[in-house]
């Protein structure tokens, strides 16, 4: 079946709700309305209000109650409506979600999946398009996942719903409805913690994840026309990250460009390049580069196109890296 990413996530949630009675969806407008992005469409009608719950408007309580439910063996799937409102629950994530296993020496664990639509590029309102992944990657104890295609989203979410650890599942808004692709109807899983080579190549490693992946793939295809053969690494899980796949690719190509839309300073590219330096330094033929959002507040919608990395910046970075001897 050809599905958009929103539909693929919906199909996954549907299958998982049917498979595991412990799963409960909760959040603002996820029930009757089917979610502001239509990701939970139809699930309220099918599974009822005990399992697909519209909550009062309070992110802290949505995540906090999920923590209590998960500790008692349920598998809640709280949704934060937009990334910019995840901060209202951040203290719950940082103080509790990330630490429960550690501080109880494994007595209590939190098998929950916190779904957050993330990133910009859909011309939405202020605070509706934030690159927030670093804030979550920075918290040991949490698995951070960012799918890049409809197929990937379905398989990764299915795995997240079996995870023993709390997962922050970052859904790229920009890709929710960007395109459809073939997604198997039957259940399948894609392992967490494993990156994927989205395109094989030999000249340079383009490393990215989530929202930027299709754009980077396009850039890679165009570069190939121009005689450069890039490899594209889609990280899938940002923490714990599959550093082996990253360093293996860079050892092979000797060059790297990292792409994400979050701000440059302490964006995930900082960590990725540090790892490359630690593990593949002597294989490098050029200084690694990153193409990221600027170190600014994300502009409101009229100016947002000037903020996000695009093909022109990505291709230029690749060419500059290739030009280094």
């Amino acid at each position, binding site marked *: 079946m050809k599905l958009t990413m929103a539909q693929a996530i919906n199909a996954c949630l549907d299958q998982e709700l049917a498979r595991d009675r412990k799963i409960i969806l909760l959040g603002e407008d996820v029930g009757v309305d089917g979610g502001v992005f239509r990701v939970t469409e139809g699930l309220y009608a099918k599974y009822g209000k005990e399992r697909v719950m519209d909550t009062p408007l309070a992110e802290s309580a949505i995540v906090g109650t999920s923590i209590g439910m998960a500790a008692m063996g349920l598998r809640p799937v709280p949704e934060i409506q937009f990334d910019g409102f995840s901060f209202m629950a951040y203290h719950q994530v940082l103080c509790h979600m990330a630490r429960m296993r550690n501080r109880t020496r494994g007595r209590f664990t939190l098998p929950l999946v916190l779904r957050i639509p993330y990133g910009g590029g859909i*011309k939405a309102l202020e605070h509706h398009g934030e690159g927030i992944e670093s804030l979550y990657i920075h918290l040991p104890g949490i698995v951070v996942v960012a799918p890049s295609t409809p197929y990937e989203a379905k398989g990764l979410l299915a795995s997240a719903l079996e995870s023993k650890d709390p997962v922050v599942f970052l859904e790229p808004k920009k890709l929710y409805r960007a395109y459809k692709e073939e997604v198997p109807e039957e259940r399948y899983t894609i392992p967490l913690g494993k990156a994927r080579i989205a395109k094989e190549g030999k000249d340079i490693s383009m490393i990215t994840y989530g929202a930027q992946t299709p754009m980077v793939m396009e850039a890679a295809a165009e570069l190939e026309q121009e005689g450069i053969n890039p490899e594209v690494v889609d990280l899938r899980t940002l923490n714990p990250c599959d550093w082996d796949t990253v360093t293996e690719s860079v050892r092979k190509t000797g060059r790297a460009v990292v792409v994400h839309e979050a701000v440059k300073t302490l964006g995930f590219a900082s960590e990725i390049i540090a790892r490359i330096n630690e593990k593949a330094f002597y294989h490098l033929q050029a200084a690694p580069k990153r193409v990221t959002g600027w170190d600014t507040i994300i502009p*409101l919608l009229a100016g947002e196109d000037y903020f996000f990395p695009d093909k022109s910046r990505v291709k230029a970075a690749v060419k500059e890296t290739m030009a280094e001897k």
Partner: protein
Amino acid sequence: MARRRVYEGSVDYLQILNEKGVADKKLEPKLSPGILKTMFELMLLTRAYDDKSVKLQRQGRMGTYAPILGQEAVGAAAALALGKDDWVLPTYRETQAYIARGVPLEKLFMYWKGIEEGMNFPEGTNSFPFAIPIGTHLPHAVGIAFALKRAGRKQAMLTFVGDGGTSQGDFHESLNFAGVWQVPLVVVIVNNHWAISVPRSEQSASATLAQKGLGYGIPCIQVDGNDALAVYKAVSDALINARSGKGPTLIEAVTYRMSMHTTADDPTKYRSDKEVNEWKKRDPIERFRKYLQKKKLWTKNYEARAMERFSKQIDEAVAKMEAYKGDPHDMFKYVWSEITDNLKEQMAEMEKFYGAGKP
């Protein structure tokens, strides 16, 4: 006695103008024809500006917009109760309060178009830009009220929050602080019955939202939010108390969101036409028009001339919004007090790519 009652609370409901536009003689405030007409005209202008905003969004000339339709009275009457030196911090659905404070219309259009300059309000309007993250502005309102109190010039602060917003921790923490600090603050809960698709009944198990003030030792009242006179009276009284050192007040204005949550929403998915039609009968503008007519302050011609003025004012504001040429460099200029070397470098890089404008 081992067991005795230690607290009892109650909440009043205030309606002055009924749905037919008839005022309760005992409750009717003595307002000059001037202020009554200003109130009516602000509601008319609000509806026209609101209607234009939805159209602009539909035509792709503006971004996502949150319609005010049906709620004109709350923001208009409350803001008109403010004194010149008072301050206001509304939500995205009471932008008519800005109009009352003299914020130029083009600023509002610009904000909704996604231009930061739309939040740069002129001096003297004593208005803060609204916060998109629900309820997060309420602690600021308490802090602003604290500063006003400390300045000692008998000023008050007015803020708003939706029924949905009353569920946020910030709402409760703010009321608690306001009560403890006894700041000159008036909080108006705009209960429009819906928080996107979540009905009032599922937002809180309490019978009224006003009664939440009781828990924090704050006087509270519920008013008919489609009755501009009731809103005006309740807010005026609360502001007088605030200015004279009697502390905060919580007011629940009961109204109804006649339109979609935002232009990105489809309310037919979660609510019935029947409910919406019931509320049509309680239209705040229709009601006020009848009231003015009875007072011989309204004629068809008077309204037609006012509408002509407003549509000209709106067209001029739209033209200004559309003439505004945003400069992508501005993104770098206000992050810190000075542009850092790091940002200068990034700005140069941006120029290299998009110097001639974004394709």
